[in-house]
């Protein structure tokens, strides 16, 4: 070893030592920046949980308490007593139970059509489909509202779920189409030779292979519906039909004169509403990221 080093011209050796030192500094700087960012991202999450476990008096003091003196687990129970939060969460789950099968079935059919068949007008429909992503929802909002109003479908979940049974939206279709296109056509052809019908090929050959993509789509649909505020807000005006998102805002806006102070309960409700999403993330982390990979965004 010593011999090798001796043989190196001294300037090169010095450059090498210099480079290694620089690398160490770079590493340190990277960790410092990452940790600073991590603290900024994590603190609000920590603060939600901590505030939700404090008494109202603790929260409303000019000396902030980072941690509750005694964790008030009862706050969580009081959320469910103060407002029908369990009912609202149940409604949100019900909506996702309707939309997820919808997007899986009709989204796959549409994606199958775009990925595997060669028909007149396909390119035009495909471009139009992608174009819908660019148009703001406000453009179709008013006529859609008028339509559902005239069909007496206000205060039902039809306006909120029908889209998922009609393809499920451009992004989902695009994602599924990209995935089908990555499956070798030979598999379809072989099944076709065996006399399988196209629907049989989709059901028996493609869908089993599409499980990762379908899981991703199901998760994205769940997140979208769980988070959705505007649709439920305009189409539902009976408190017992509210979703968790609309319900949380309702809870926030109950006039103070008619109710006890509730900042701590609001924090608990916000935490409760976030739990299903975090649980899903913990259970299926890789599918959250898969959406990006599937859509072929290597760019």
């Amino acid at each position, binding site marked *: 070893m010593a011999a090798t080093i001796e043989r190196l011209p001294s300037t090169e050796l010095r450059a090498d030592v210099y480079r290694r030192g620089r690398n160490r500094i770079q590493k340190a700087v990277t960790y410092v920046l990452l940790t600073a960012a991590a603290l900024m991202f994590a603190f609000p999450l920590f603060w939600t949980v901590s505030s939700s476990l404090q008494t109202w008096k603790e*929260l409303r003091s000019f000396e902030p308490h980072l941690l509750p003196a005694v964790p008030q687990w009862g706050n969580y129970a009081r959320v469910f007593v103060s407002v029908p939060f369990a009912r609202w969460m149940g409604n949100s789950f019900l909506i996702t139970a309707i939309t997820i099968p919808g997007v899986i079935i009709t989204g796959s059919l549409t994606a199958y059509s775009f990925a595997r068949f060669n*028909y007149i007008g396909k390119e035009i429909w495909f471009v139009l489909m992608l174009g819908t992503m660019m148009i703001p929802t406000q453009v179709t909002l008013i006529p859609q509202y008028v339509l559902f109003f005239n069909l007496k479908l206000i205060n039902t979940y039809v306006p909120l779920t029908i889209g998922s049974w009609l393809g499920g939206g451009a992004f989902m279709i695009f994602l599924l189409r990209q995935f089908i296109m990555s499956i070798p056509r030979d598999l379809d052809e072989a099944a076709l030779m065996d006399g399988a019908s196209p629907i049989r090929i989709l059901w028996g050959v493609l869908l089993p292979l599409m499980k990762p993509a379908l899981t991703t789509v199901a998760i994205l649909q769940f997140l979208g519906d769980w988070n959705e505020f505007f649709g439920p807000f305009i189409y539902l005006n009976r408190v017992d039909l509210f979703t968790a998102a609309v319900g*949380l805002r309702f809870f926030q806006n109950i006039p103070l004169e008619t109710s006890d102070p509730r900042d701590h309960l609001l924090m608990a409700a916000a935490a409760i509403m976030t739990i299903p999403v975090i649980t899903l993330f913990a259970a299926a982390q890789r599918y959250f990221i898969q959406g990006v990979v599937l859509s072929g965004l290597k760019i």
Partner: protein
Amino acid sequence: MATMANRLKLSGFSEMLTTSRQRRENFYGYLFLTPWLIGFFGLFLGPGLFSLYLSFTKYDVLSAPEWIGLKNYIKMFSDDPLFYTSLGRTFYYAGVGIPLGVFGSMFLAILLNAKLRGLAAYRTLFFMPSLVPIVASVVLWKWLLHADFGIINQWLVDIGWSDPPGWFGDRRWAIPSLIFMGLWQGLGGTRMIIFLAGLQGIPESLYEAASIDGATAFHKLRHVTIPLLTPTIFFNMVLGVIGGLQVFTAAFVATEGGPGFATTFYSLHLYRQAFDYWNMGYAATLAWFFALVIVSLTIWQLRLSRRWVFYYGS
């Protein structure tokens, strides 16, 4: 007639119409497309065109639309101060928030792309805020940024800012508050993952070549990483503009457009016209103009992209 048939044959059209294979493709293609086609016509194109018609009418849902020609459009440009204010505030929010968001996400992704230990944990942590439902996030941030009892203001007082901002309750600070909240939610989310995917697509050989030439980390960032990320930056900018201009929920739940119209973004103005005042015709006018703005901005960005987006290998 003969030439027509010839032309059709040349372009393969006659085969498309006649061979049994093609007939089959047409049949099944359209069969499976049907659910989406129903949605496209029934929930998108139909309502879109009806909304265009409504933009020329006075309509309150309960009585039939009444044709008033261009009156809504004239009102929008000459007799609705909130039209300009809300458009301006929307551009302020998007113009500041989107570049900060896109470059912030890129910066985080570059840090996470270093080959260091423990980065997966950081990535997970950065991603977490994007999972918080937006309404829950508003509840949280209204408390963090509470003028009197919010922990952020208590810290600001501690470090010597005796008169800290009123945040959501302050006309000047309401939009910045929404931007901070948006950054917290958005920086580490899908956008950062897209940047990570983009970074992983950069060939290692380019960095090796740069190292041999004695490039420093900064040089590599400046001359390899960023140029090769321009397509990803562009993609995120386009999506960011389309989404950012439509901002609604955060402002509606946090401030209801206030204080004093400070956060009355375009979509809130439109919502009020439609669902508080039942001016459905006028709201449709606002909606169509909005679509025009977003589509033009997208096309403009596409045009502009030819000057700065670099596609490796082409």
